């Protein structure tokens, strides 16, 4: 029996003195650690171990935290058509983000992502392909683009723009997202558009939005400067590790009190608990009652931050005031139409809170499975004054919270944040920690009026693109840099729809002739079927491998010069340092070629700098506004990329402004009430806006809102495990980024995680006769799928129980296999899987039912049965996987 084994090298080449050095940042998680790339030709002599022989000026062996090169940080790539060594290492000189050169296991192995035909990256997509005679065959760019353009035009002309679906990553660099959204939203103007992580183009955190909080207002420094840090729905160590190790861990060691909430303990949780912190172990979807109970204890004891509430929270008048907010025609407006959320200020909210059954300690404890003592302790830690002084409290949220009761949880946490005075001050912030980096720049607005989705009240909501596709309305589906199917809830039901509309349609390409191919695909669309185009760096299964008619190969990180921001809005240039494989092209280029062939104007870019310079003015007013970088650049006769490159791995935090002397100034945190801006307003084309010094609300003060459990409780009760079921939730694990597209090609990561796993508590495992290393089936007969696009008229039309009653929910079977890991680190009655393994996708078992208010899926709260189907090869061999707990300290 053999299992993946990577034989590590025991020697590594060092960059010579004259190696070229380029800066970049990590391609993966939100933290975006700063990296340096050292490049030298393979024909040149490598560096030596003496300081005068290598580019680091270091004597080897180097000291701890030094410029060491792990073998996984070296690769050989083509640059200008000649083979070069590259070494990609964290920047040990940096004073921001990954201070001193910290790095994660993901970023630390970035070199392994570079295309090298000797490594498992050999299968990078290198040419466009068309599925002819059932097989994806390499073709020329002109051939593929001509077909794509003709079929695209036909679908839009004959079936309407909404029949043209664009499903794209939201983050893979501003140059690309600008081009993609300009194409989809401005040029085609389809409402059948959304990003990789949601079925509808809607806010991910409705409660934050309505309270007035920017998702990424905080600086990393704020997480460190907090005296009390409440991390909800994430362990940053497990998902964005350098944020934890460079900022939070040192703070905890310096006396910060930390709390975490969620069903799964990981290394960060264990570290928190061992250092005077607290883990609130809750079952999925039960955050709202716990947060209300904490809030109730705080207000019953008078521990709320009264000064903050007096000065920075809207009263009755403020809550209803203002053009574009309050009772007027905004998303916030319709959310408040039925009187569910809006309050008349703190006292009104408090009155509501005290009336809620679920805010009672005993009730919240019963629903969540978290002890009363822990909930009480949390309230004390967050808000009880110590020696007459309030603690400086910050709140960090992530998907465990906002993807398990999207609207309710984000409203509840916002209200708690408001009463503990989190927001607007150094060390006192409330924000998301983030998942992927912030690389979105819109090149067009979403045409909400064209969406068929109408919710109760007067508002339209962005289209649920999955439900629209399943109903057969999408005639061309264009997936860009996302697996789509495994990323969305109810994976297997969605795959059935793709099969039906694409594979089972009689119109399949059986010709070599361009016009016949075009005609076949047109007939497919006209017959009620669907054409699929896929743009990615690898052929992903099934979106590319099984469904795509046309595949475009994309160039990515390191293969083109790009711009992106991280979780504290820090903008950096990600420099190109090697040649893209074959004929792979950056996404902005592909969009431009397709758009021009379809007759759209405004796509005449020559390089990625042209794109970012065009996009910059649309960034004004946004959280990462970078327009002033371009202004400064042009003033100095430079390009945008040249100017931003001067800031190296430090970059600059958006929104950016320019002083009179031409120097650029960044923004440490948003909503910063301590920040002094020019009293006479912004000079020149600088923009000073509300979010810099106030909150994103109608008055600039926070809205404190109700969080009714009743909007969600029927869904929660339905999902709640019955008989021998267990909760099933999912999330990121430190070693794997997103769908694992790179990690499955990094031999060491493959060795660590050869397939998906499911964590099961020992008590649950014992009942089912499951041991670590067993192969199990995780399955359900009752995964709910919402069908039908209905017009909401009555207040409860989109309530889950109403949807059920009115026949809009159907129930499907779904199953994924996994390797069992029995560990007390997962709460009893709960199972946990990696969220996006393309072969064993946890989302298959999550209900395809959107949050009735926001339109997002609640990905983190399913339930399923589990049974052993055999023993895996990893159980008794020693080369691959590990069943040791992730909570060892």
């Amino acid at each position, binding site marked *: 029996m*053999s*299992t*993946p*084994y*990577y*034989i*590590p*090298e*025991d*020697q*590594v*080449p060092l960059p010579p003195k004259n190696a070229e050095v380029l800066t970049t940042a990590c391609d993966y998680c939100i933290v975006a650690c700063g990296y340096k790339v050292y490049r030298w030709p*393979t024909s040149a002599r*490598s560096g030596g*171990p003496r300081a005068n022989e290598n580019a680091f000026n270091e004597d*080897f*062996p180097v000291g*701890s*935290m*030094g410029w*060491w090169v*792990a*073998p*996984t940080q070296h*690769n050989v790539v*083509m640059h200008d058509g*000649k*083979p070069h060594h590259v070494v990609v290492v964290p920047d040990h000189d940096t004073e921001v983000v990954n201070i001193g*050169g*910290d*790095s994660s*296991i993901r970023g*630390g192995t970035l070199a392994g992502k570079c295309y*090298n035909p*000797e*490594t*498992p990256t050999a299968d990078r997509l290198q040419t466009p392909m068309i599925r002819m005679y059932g097989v994806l065959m390499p073709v020329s760019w002109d051939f593929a683009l001509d077909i794509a353009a003709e079929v695209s035009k036909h679908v839009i002309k004959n079936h309407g723009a909404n029949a043209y679906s664009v499903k794209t990553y939201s983050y893979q660099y501003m140059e690309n997202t600008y081009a993609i959204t300009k194409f989809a939203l401005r040029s085609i103007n389809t409402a059948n558009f959304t990003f990789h992580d949601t079925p509808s183009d809607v806010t991910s955190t409705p409660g934050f939005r309505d309270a007035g909080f920017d998702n990424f207002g905080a600086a990393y420094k704020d997480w460190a400067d907090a005296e009390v840090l409440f991390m909800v729905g994430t362990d940053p160590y*497990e998902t964005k*590790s*350098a944020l934890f*190790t460079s900022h939070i*861990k040192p703070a905890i060691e310096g006396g910060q009190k930390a709390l975490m909430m969620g069903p799964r303990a*990981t*290394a*960060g949780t264990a*570290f928190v608990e061992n250092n005077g912190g607290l883990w609130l172990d809750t079952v999925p979807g039960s955050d709202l009652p716990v947060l209300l109970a904490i809030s109730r204890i705080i207000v019953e004891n008078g521990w709320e931050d009264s000064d903050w509430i007096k000065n920075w929270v809207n009263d009755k008048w403020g809550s209803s005031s203002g053009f574009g907010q309050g009772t007027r025609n905004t998303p916030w407006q319709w959310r408040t139409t039925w009187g569910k959320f809006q309050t008349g200020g703190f006292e009104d909210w408090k009155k509501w809170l005290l009336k809620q059954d679920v805010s009672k300690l005993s009730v919240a404890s019963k629903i969540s499975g978290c002890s009363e003592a822990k909930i009480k302790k949390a309230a004390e830690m967050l808000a009880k004054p110590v020696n007459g002084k309030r603690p400086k409290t910050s709140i960090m949220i992530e998907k465990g919270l906002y993807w398990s009761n999207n609207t309710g949880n984000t409203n509840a946490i916002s209200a708690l944040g408001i009463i503990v005075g989190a927001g607007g001050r150094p060390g006192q912030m409330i924000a998301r920690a983030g998942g992927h980096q912030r690389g979105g720049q819109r090149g067009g607005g979403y045409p909400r009026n064209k969406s068929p989705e109408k919710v109760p009240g007067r508002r339209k909501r962005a289209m649920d693109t999955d439900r629209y596709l399943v109903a057969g309305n999408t005639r061309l589906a264009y997936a860009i840099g996302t697996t789509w199917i495994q990323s969305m809830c109810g994976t297997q039901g969605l795959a059935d729809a793709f099969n039906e509309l694409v594979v089972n349609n009689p119109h399949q390409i059986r010709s070599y002739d361009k016009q016949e191919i075009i005609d076949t695909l047109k007939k497919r669309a006209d017959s009620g079927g669907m054409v699929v185009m896929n743009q990615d760096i690898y052929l992903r299964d099934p979106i590319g491998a099984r469904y795509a008619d046309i595949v475009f190969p994309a160039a990515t990180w390191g293969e083109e010069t790009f711009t992106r921001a991280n979780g504290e809005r820090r903008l950096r240039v990600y420099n190109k340092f090697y040649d*893209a494989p074959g004929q792979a092209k950056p996404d902005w280029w592909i969009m431009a070629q397709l758009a021009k062939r379809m007759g759209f104007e405004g796509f005449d870019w020559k390089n990625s700098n042209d794109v970012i310079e065009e996009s910059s003015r649309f960034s004004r007013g946004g959280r990462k506004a970078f327009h002033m970088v371009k202004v400064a650049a042009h003033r100095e006769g430079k390009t945008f990329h040249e100017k931003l490159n001067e800031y190296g791995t430090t970059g600059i935090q958006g929104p950016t402004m320019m002083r009179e002397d031409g120097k650029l100034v960044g923004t440490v945190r948003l909503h910063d009430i301590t920040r002094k801006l020019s009293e006479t307003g912004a000079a020149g084309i600088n923009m000073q806006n509300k979010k810099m010094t106030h909150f994103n609300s109608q008055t600039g003060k926070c809205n404190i809102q109700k969080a009714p459990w009743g909007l969600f409780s029927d869904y929660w009760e339905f999902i709640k495990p019955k008989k021998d079921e267990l909760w099933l939730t999912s999330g990121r694990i*430190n070693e794997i980024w997103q769908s694992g597209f790179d990690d499955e090609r990094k031999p*060491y990561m493959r*060795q660590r995680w050869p397939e998906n796993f499911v964590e099961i508590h020992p008590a649950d495992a014992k009942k089912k006769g499951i041991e670590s290393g067993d192969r199990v089936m995780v399955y359900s007969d009752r995964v709910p799928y919402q069908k039908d696009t209905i017009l909401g008229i009555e207040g409860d039309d989109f309530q889950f129980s109403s949807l059920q009653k009115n026949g809009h929910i159907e129930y499907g079977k779904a199953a994924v296999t996994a390797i069992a890991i029995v560990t007390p680190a997962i709460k009893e009655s709960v199972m946990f899987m990696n969220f996006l393994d393309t072969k064993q996708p946890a989302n298959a078992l999550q209900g395809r039912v959107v949050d009735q208010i926001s339109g997002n899926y609640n990905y983190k709260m399913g339930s399923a049965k589990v049974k052993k189907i055999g023993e895996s090869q990893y159980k*008794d*061999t*020693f*080369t691959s*996987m*590990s069943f*040791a*707990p*992730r909570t*060892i300290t």
Partner: protein
Amino acid sequence: MTELIKSKTSTEKPGDDLASHQKCMMTRRQFLLTSGTATATVMLMMKFGAAQAAVPAVVTNYPRKLIGKLSSLQNDKPLAFSYPDDGDYAESLLVKLGTEGGGGVGPKKDVVAFNYYCTHQGGSLDGTYKAATKSLGACPLHLSTFDLTRHGIVISGQAYQSVPQVLLEIEGDNIYAVGMMGLIYGRNSNLKG
């Protein structure tokens, strides 16, 4: 872009007797991988096509060093030793896990040895052996942990590779260190010079 790319490793020192070292090291590496269990074999995940037969690591000449006696080992009581030299980051541990481990020697295949430094940024793992989980760590710098039953694989954390395993051989009661798997933190080559 053409496919002219050479092997990743090109730093062999001139004068080394490549062939014989290669043979020697393959033997020892395979010994390590197969001695832990009767069923484990080597699978080179990273090699494709013509390169499949190549040995990925640079061949080096590890010393054979007596590091302890089987009879003096107690379960879960690590002993410290230096390998492959007495230089920086050479501190290692020899431990009898009490349960079979990958690369383990002795009658129960439970005697293993590892370098004592975290392969992330060089934190010392001395004193972090955990009997309950047969693991090293958490590293005091960034909390990485390593599973000693599975060739030192990262359990959780920041490290880029397994903690280097010291290859062992038994001769009677004597335990010899004979080679290493993986680059020791801080070094560009496990062997100086």
